[in-house]
């Protein structure tokens, strides 16, 4: 029997989708149990499986015998507006989830780069946070628990549905940013906020150094923006760098911060965006990252952000950059090669700055890896965890590169 025939026998015809251009069979299990069945079989048969969400982000180019897509895991079993929690399957599109939450007055305060239909599971697995990371923290801070299926088909739950939970070791944090190396996430328990009653965006254009200073002044003045994002001219499609400030929360808080903004703007003048403009601005920023082939993020302390931006400019060119300096996060997108990326990662490692490769064509991704430049002793721990959760190496993920 071919792989396709075996899978059809296992999960039924409905689970088999049209293959992509590389003709690798694409399978969409309809339930968490079906994911477990499929991976258990893959483990026994020695199939190599690549994981896909909606397939909007990473090119479907990893060498594999089978592509597992989560797109039929698209239910939302629970939204509890009074507890501010929700449970959703990993394949739900973020846009659909957002809409259903908004209908109940709830908000998932994340804005990862990407297209509207990107799946919740992939956002968790890549831990790609957007500008809201400044005010609301990285993706992991929004997770109460996950259920995942290991590379050999075991279903594991971690965490739960409540706000605080220290029962057992925290395997949720292993999955957030694991890029699927430790299993396929099938179900996610989320921590929500109430939809902000006030939500406004201001932008200021200027020279990068001046805007960094304004950003620091804003922090020093005690304002508490939801986002404080420094965007390069090419990405913002403006003449100069842009500092975008999003204030979201209770009307009282937003009004107070708006009043403080003028004083902190270093002589420049922030201009408010109308609601549609603001929406378009943040959306363009999110989608902009898919235009160029390579995207990575680096994390450095706020005080080093200028130096790091200089370094990126010097080594790779700075046309497409978005940074939350106060949150210590910088994202770069553009075109580069294996050599330069590896060199950059080494340089950054010397500065205690990790580089996570978020997106690249397989030849580069496979060589450089999502992760790398571990400190002494870390590699064996990661390898041990990988073997624990995928003993047969069924899941094709470019963790450390080759």
């Amino acid at each position: 029997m071919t792989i396709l025939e075996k899978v059809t026998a296992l999960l039924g015809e409905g689970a088999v989708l049209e293959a992509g251009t590389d003709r690798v069979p694409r399978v969409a299990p309809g339930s968490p149990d079906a994911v477990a069945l499929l991976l258990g079989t893959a483990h026994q048969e020695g199939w190599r499986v690549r994981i896909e969400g909606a397939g909007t982000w990473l090119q479907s180019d990893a060498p594999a015998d089978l592509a597992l897509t989560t797109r039929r895991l698209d239910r939302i079993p629970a939204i509890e507006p009074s507890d501010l929690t929700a449970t959703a399957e990993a394949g739900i599109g973020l846009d659909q989830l957002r809409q259903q939450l908004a209908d109940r007055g709830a908000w998932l305060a994340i804005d990862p780069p990407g297209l509207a239909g990107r799946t919740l599971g992939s956002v968790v697995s890549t831990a790609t946070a957007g500008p809201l990371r400044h005010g609301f923290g990285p993706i992991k801070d929004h997770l109460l628990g996950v259920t995942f299926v290991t590379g050999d088909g075991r279903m594991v739950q971690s965490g739960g549905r409540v706000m605080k939970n220290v029962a057992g070791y925290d395997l949720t944090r292993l999955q957030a940013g694991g890029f699927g190396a430790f299993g396929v996430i099938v179900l996610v328990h989320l921590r929500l906020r109430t939809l902000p009653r006030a939500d406004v965006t201001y932008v200021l254009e200027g020279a990068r150094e001046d805007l960094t200073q304004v950003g620091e002044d804003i922090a020093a003045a005690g304002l508490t923006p939801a986002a404080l994002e420094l965007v390069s001219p090419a990405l913002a499609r403006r003449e100069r760098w842009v500092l975008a400030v999003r204030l979201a929360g209770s009307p009282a808080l937003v009004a107070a911060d708006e009043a403080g903004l003028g004083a902190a703007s270093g002589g420049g003048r922030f201009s408010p965006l109308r609601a549609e403009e603001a929406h378009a601005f943040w959306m363009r920023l999110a989608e902009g990252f898919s235009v160029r082939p390579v995207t990575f993020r680096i994390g450095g302390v706020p005080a080093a952000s200028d130096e790091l931006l200089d370094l990126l400019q010097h080594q790779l060119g700075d046309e497409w950059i978005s940074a939350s300096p106060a949150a210590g996060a910088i994202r770069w997108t553009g075109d580069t090669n294996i050599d330069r990326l590896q060199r950059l990662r080494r340089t950054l490692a010397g500065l205690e700055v990790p580089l996570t490769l978020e997106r690249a064509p397989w030849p580069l991704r496979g060589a450089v890896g999502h992760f790398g430049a571990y400190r002494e002793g870390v590699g064996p721990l990661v390898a041990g965890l990988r073997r624990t959760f995928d003993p047969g190496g069924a899941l094709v993920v470019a963790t450390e590169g080759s």
Partner: protein
Amino acid sequence: MDGLPTHRLIPDLVVLPGTREELVAVVRLLAALGVSFVPRGAGTGLSGGALAAEGSVLLVLTRLNRIVRIDRDSRLAVVEPGVVNAKLGAAARPAGLQYAPDPSSQSACTIGGNVAENAGGPHCLKYGVTANHILALEVLLADGSLVEIGSPSGESWGPDLVGVFVGSEGNFGIATRITVRLTPLPRAVRTLLADFTGLRTAGEAVSAIIATGIVPAALEMMDQSCINAVEDSVYAAGYPRDAAAVLLVEIDGRNSDAVVAETDVVTDLLRQSGARSVRSAATEAERERLWQGRKKAFGAMGRLSRDLVVQDAVVPRSVLPQVLETIAAIATHYGLVVSNVFHAGDGNLHPNISFDATDPVLKNKVEAASAEIMQACIAAGGTITGEHGVGIDKMRYMPLIFDAESLGAMQAVRRVFDPDERVNPGKVVPVHACREWTHARGDRVGSRGAAPRGEAA
């Protein structure tokens, strides 16, 4: 023993290393001898985590108490594990910064213990728990090797090993150096005390506040039994003794206009939700007094009887009123005194049972009542611990919330860090309830024929 009165063990040997080098040397020696050990901070843990059984060496870390550095620009501090939580807070203050997690035990507990337990505290509602504040760690593994995980920005090198380590209850190794995030001190603070004639209305007020989208810095509840214990003690805070419950609500922020406006909204809401009175602390001294009562409530309750079991569980916020009624019914059934003081804003309950542990009948009743309380919280969609950890005390409840496969996964992760299970053995995961996992090195973890889900150990 630690802060849990129901368990006591005598270690074979206690070592108090004075430097990291001494600690490393001791752990390497123990590795060579194949002896297990238990890291211990201040011993304020409430789940028996820092207890060393026969055959284990207790490694007390309180002498490793240096604050290595406070970096104002990068808003972080690097500390040794034995630094006391409140001391770090005091050291950060001159820089206009704070270490936000504030367990009620903060005047005694250590940052190392906080990391191991993923400790919370009243102000974690707004600022997050320990896990949200740990950027990087140096960890001494059981084999005596040191690894550095995390980075000063909090971005990880690869998978989030810091996130996995925090809350591992001393089972993955010893945190020997800890980089924590510091946050700016709030510039304006308002503290409110609202009193209610019913627990249910107090619970509803909590939900009403959260629904506005305003996130108070703290939102704490105390019931009548707790109020009376506090008022009878030297920490008397002026809580009304005839109230069924009081809520302590704190609004803080960097902008005083916003804090004033949000406080007005919350005050109105409390009144609309049935508060008999809402009092605002007029001075810093009054604020401290209100908080003193809350933070020393456990101590005050400790005076009610010889021993006090401080329980810990979490439920969805919306079911708080029902669960509190169930707990009261359980207390009545067993004829026990249960007082509640807890983090209402995130549904983290602390039902406390006063008793005399020398009375075996009473002790059994306390165990049985605790188990029923845990079951009620689980049935309501909650969990068995929100901040005190599993330790030895709660291992028996683990199979009630995790199936054999998930417990096996935890055990397997533990063995990646500590293949021989020599650090703090016999805690957190009930090994007999785990399904078998092939360990990374090829040996087997757990046992076959694991207990099915839902069957208590």
